């Protein structure tokens, strides 16, 4: 069996990035200077992941103010509005306000993939998009479309993003649906979410696809539906509620998907107890029949300070190495 590591999503911003963004907002630096600075900072983050032995890397999403913003800024008929708390974090996102059917004015991912995928070698480059169900649920719909119609429109645009990203050289596509961990999510919601995700990846071939649910563990009825998704891998936040996560996985397995385990706690700054994580992994692997398994962070690394986000990257790399050795698994650290 193969094991690989990959950070779930975005990174915290360094002082350098914070400053350049602020200076740009104040009109003190040009857009080209901002872009160059972001590329430099992203390169550092990619380098940290590659050197930690992670098979798939992200660019850090340093210029994204929240998971939705880059898309909202690239689409017509939607605008960022007031702030709302982002799940159970002391972090706020700007609520997208849809006033009509969204239309893309440009693509977010393909240029990034072209820019960063070479830099990521020998690791593969991972693209992260918000899932259409989470996107729609966390937006205000002031358009004439129903929830389902708006979600379908968003899914169509995200499908273009994914197609463009794959053509540009992405190795992995991750679709984030954190809202599916919300206890109020019903089975019908999950069915809609999965249908939308399936529509996004329908024609995608040759890259790994992941559905990622985090901030909590989905209910068993929701999880049951997620097992029908056509993605290759299912990623779960294990460490936020280990007992419930283990109950779910040991009871239901991954339904033939490759499992991705959110073991490194991305919301704390202390070093994770690697031995304890090995124990958790051990209890999961006993009943696991897949050919490969992924290890990741419990959520994005943008909720802790920059230094610690790099530290957690290193810990994830160490965890993958330790687990590969302890369980006699093949450690995948390069893709290209």
């Amino acid at each position, binding site marked *: 069996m193969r094991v690989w590591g990959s950070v779930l999503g975005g990174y915290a911003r360094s002082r350098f990035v914070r400053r350049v963004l602020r200076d740009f907002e104040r009109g003190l630096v040009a857009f080209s200077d901002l872009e160059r600075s972001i590329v430099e900072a992203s390169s550092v983050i990619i380098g940290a992941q590659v050197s930690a032995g992670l098979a798939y890397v992200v660019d850090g999403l340093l210029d994204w*103010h929240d998971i939705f913003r880059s898309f909202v800024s690239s689409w017509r008929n939607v605008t960022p509005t007031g702030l709302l*708390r982002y799940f159970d974090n002391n972090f*706020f996102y700007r*609520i997208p306000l849809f006033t009509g059917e969204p239309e893309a004015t440009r693509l977010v991912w393909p240029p990034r993939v072209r820019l960063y995928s070479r830099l990521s070698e020998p690791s593969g480059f991972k693209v992260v998009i918000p899932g259409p169900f989470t996107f729609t649920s966390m937006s205000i719909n002031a358009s004439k479309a129903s929830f389902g119609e708006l979600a379908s429109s968003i899914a169509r645009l995200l499908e273009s993003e994914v197609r463009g990203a794959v053509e540009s050289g992405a190795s992995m596509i991750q679709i984030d649906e954190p809202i599916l961990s919300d206890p109020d999510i019903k089975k019908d919601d999950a069915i809609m979410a999965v249908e939308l995700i399936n529509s996004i990846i329908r024609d995608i071939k040759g890259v790994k696809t992941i559905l990622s649910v985090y901030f909590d563990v989905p209910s068993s009825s929701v999880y049951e539906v997620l097992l029908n998704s056509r993605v290759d891998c299912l990623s779960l936040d294990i460490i936020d509620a280990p007992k419930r996560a283990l109950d779910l996985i040991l009871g239901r397995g991954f339904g033939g998907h490759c499992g991705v385990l959110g073991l490194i706690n991305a919301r704390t700054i202390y070093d994770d107890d690697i031995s304890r994580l090995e124990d958790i992994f051990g209890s999961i692997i006993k009943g696991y029949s897949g050919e490969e398994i992924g290890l990741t962070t419990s959520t994005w690394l*943008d909720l802790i*300070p920059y230094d610690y986000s790099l530290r957690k990257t290193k810990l994830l790399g160490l965890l993958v190495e330790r687990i590969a050795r302890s369980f006699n698994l093949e450690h995948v650290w390069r893709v290209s």
Partner: protein
Amino acid sequence: MAYSVPRKFPTTIVGSYPKMPQALEAIKKRKSGEISEEEFKEIVKPAIREVVEDYLWAGVDIISDGEQAREDMVVYFAERMRGYSIGDWVRVFDNEYFRKPIVIGRVEWISPMTLDHWLYTTSISQDRPVKGILTGPYTMMEWSFDLYYRDRRELIIDLAKVIRREVEELIKAGAQYIQVDEPALSTRPWREDAELLKEALDIIFKGLEAKRIIHICFGRLERIIPYILDYPVDQFDLEMKNSNFRLLPYLKEYGFNKELAFGVVDVHSFQVESIREIEEAIDTVMRADIVNPEKAYVKPDCGLKRLPRDIARAKLKNMVEAARRAREKY
């Protein structure tokens, strides 16, 4: 002559108000070490005066200092108690950050943290009562990193003791309204968390001669309502407008029997609610038949700090007028 708070539908605020430029400047100077804590307290006062003038102009009955000195609701207290180290920058939204504090030792009260500005606000409030407002132990715990206790119960209990000490200072000085803010509770609405906070609130509020208030906002409070209604408080201060009064049936079902301060203006919207819209919000609460007008307080959903000042003022003005009309109606 003492200000007389209306018997029905008193108006109040949750606490924070848009930061005045003087306050922002003072926070920056204090952070860079240019000024001492004592100088900081003085420099912030003109900002507090402006806030109070806005409240008085709008006609709010029970006011605050606008939390002008507070860079952030957690950082402010963490910087002023023992056991915390101020951490590195963590993003709050867009390109805005706060220094997420780290618990590195036993937390202890050192000296009054909010008293000076409470006293100052009281001195210029034209006798309107001023709330003593403190960030609650659960929120302090959840929005800090903990490298010392590694045990949530131990940490929250010690934080409660620190807050209790601060409350005692405020009451000694004459505070009649003590509010503990717990926005983090509704983001992790689990029974065990609700019960953990109850234990902490017992420490904070036991035997107090003041109106005891807990403010909770957003999130999924309905999930834990059965476990919080016996909190040792006189008043629940809840966000309602933003969630379209979703909590009302739950409060009714579980036999809510305390005072209810309910949000009638949305602090996330730049749109100023009309007087009529706020009257309708009050009507919605009254129709739910949970509290009588004597136990109903009218207020914004949460702190107003994220709004432009002119919008915050306009919202308060309309809120006060709507409450006045409700007094005639009920």
